[in-house]
């Protein structure tokens, strides 16, 4: 479904609900639109089930944009998706501990598991990046094992340290910078997720695997322990 939503944006909705095949399909749609080389294209913002296309309204109007995008969207829905094979795998090391994950013990108690089991379940799933947003480089990854899914904190923390790994329902993410945040924190990742030169490390459609690391490895990789 393609709908105009404002004077310079159109929203393409691919499915009514989140599923694990969507990130790859959306990444493939982004790729097809980019390759078409439209001179009026300004930006594309993928999210869980949608792709927002931003265009230059001086060059084209919403009818022209819709007409150009329709065949591309149609082709994608009929031919299936080949992007699955090409999608990138990114490994993120995480130091899970009480000192870097102030909610780890709480989550373990809440789930009726011990901390080791929470860590095992969080790091044994291959995640998909479903969306980017909230802050530069903040990647929403899914899906977390239902046994360790946890709601956001009722009162968000004023300051979450950079690199913090959190869970909110069945999503997980790494906070790229210090920011306020309401996710349940279980560890910290020393990898930089956003910098001004390379921009966001992760993009929608990427596969992500998490490797638990020791305190020493975390520090050696440049991780910081500040609360």
């Amino acid at each position, binding site marked *: 479904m393609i*709908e*105009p*939503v*404002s*004077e*310079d*944006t159109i*929203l393409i909705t691919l499915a009514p*609900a*989140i599923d694990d095949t969507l990130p790859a399909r959306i990444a493939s749609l982004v790729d097809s639109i980019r390759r078409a080389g439209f001179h009026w294209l*300004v*930006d*594309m*913002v*993928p*999210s*869980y*089930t*949608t*792709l*927002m296309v*931003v265009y230059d*309204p*001086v060059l084209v*109007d*919403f009818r022209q944009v819709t007409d150009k995008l329709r065949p591309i969207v149609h082709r994608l829905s009929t031919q299936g998706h080949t992007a699955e094979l090409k999608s990138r795998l990114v490994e993120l090391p995480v130091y899970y501990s009480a000192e870097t994950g102030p909610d780890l013990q709480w989550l373990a108690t809440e789930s009726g598991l011990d901390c080791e089991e929470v860590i095992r379940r969080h790091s044994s799933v291959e995640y998909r990046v479903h*969306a*980017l*947003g*909230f*802050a*530069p*480089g*903040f990647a*929403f990854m899914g899906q977390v094992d239902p046994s360790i899914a946890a709601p956001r904190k009722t009162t968000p923390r004023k300051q979450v340290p950079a690199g913090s790994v959190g869970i909110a329902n069945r999503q997980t993410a790494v906070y790229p*910078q*210090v920011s306020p945040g309401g996710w349940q924190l279980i560890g910290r990742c020393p990898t930089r997720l*956003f910098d*001004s030169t390379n*921009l*966001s490390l992760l*993009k*929608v459609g990427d596969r992500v695997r998490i490797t638990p690391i020791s305190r020493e490895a975390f520090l050696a990789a440049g991780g910081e322990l500040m609360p």
Partner: protein
Amino acid sequence: MSWLEVIHPGVQSTVQDSGRRGYRHHGLAAGGALDLISFTWANKLLDNPRHAACLEIMLGGFRAIAQGSLQIAITGARTSVTVNGEPVELWRTLNLDDGDELTISHSVHNRLIYLAVAGGLDSPEQFGSRTVVVREKLEGRGPLKTVDKLVPREPQRKVPSREVPAHQRPDFSSEVVIGLIPGYQYSQFQRTDILRLTTSNYTVSDQSDRMGFRLQGPALDCPPPGIISEGIAHGSVQIPGDGQPIVLLNDGQTIGGYPKPGVVPILDCSRLAQQLPGGRVRFELCDLATAQNQRRLFELHYQNTRWCQNGQALEWL
């Protein structure tokens, strides 16, 4: 070389241009001047490039000294401006000599003042723009400070004296009517809630900033529940659980999960952004083609008009 040496930066002054193009998929806000109309006129007065950077001064309270001679233009909120204590007018070109002291008073009617220098402001570019998005806390990107220098990109270029024709100046009176292009979850809102939204008077809350303007008025009864997060267009109207609308502006987040009955046209966002807390706002349904035509006319006017010799009017090329 000439520049302006900042003595009082004001409450929050930031370098702004037309914002970033094509970086929202990294989670970066677009940024850019909140009041596109005043910003654009400041540049047009000086024949600056369309996207040249200006200083966006929130609420005034700004003072600077000219080092060398330079040409500037000030547009936006109604306020009093003086050079060496002598009142000068907004919406026109202004020549400063070495040592001149420029003072912009606190604005009690509107929010934003734009100060352009001939040639455009110089500052480091990042992500294809000079915009400062304070909430992102990126290195070297903060509000203006005392002793900062405002340096033109091309020194010593001057245009003849000009002023924006009165009929082309935006009206920032205390009540604004802003369009609402139906879209996103429009059809999921109850008919009575849409009626309430488009017939009630709202006031601008003091919890309004460059991310978005919160409005207060009759709450919508029964907004649809949260949706799966999706891309947010500039001007999107979010209705959170309390039923009070939030109009998302330049520094807003790139995706979000609150239901949206539609989007406010960007030129109307400019008028909204000029309102102070307590300012009155009404929504009026408008159609997309009209909004798109108005925007296009606005952009074409910049590209395809030039100043008449007397500096009092513009003519189409």
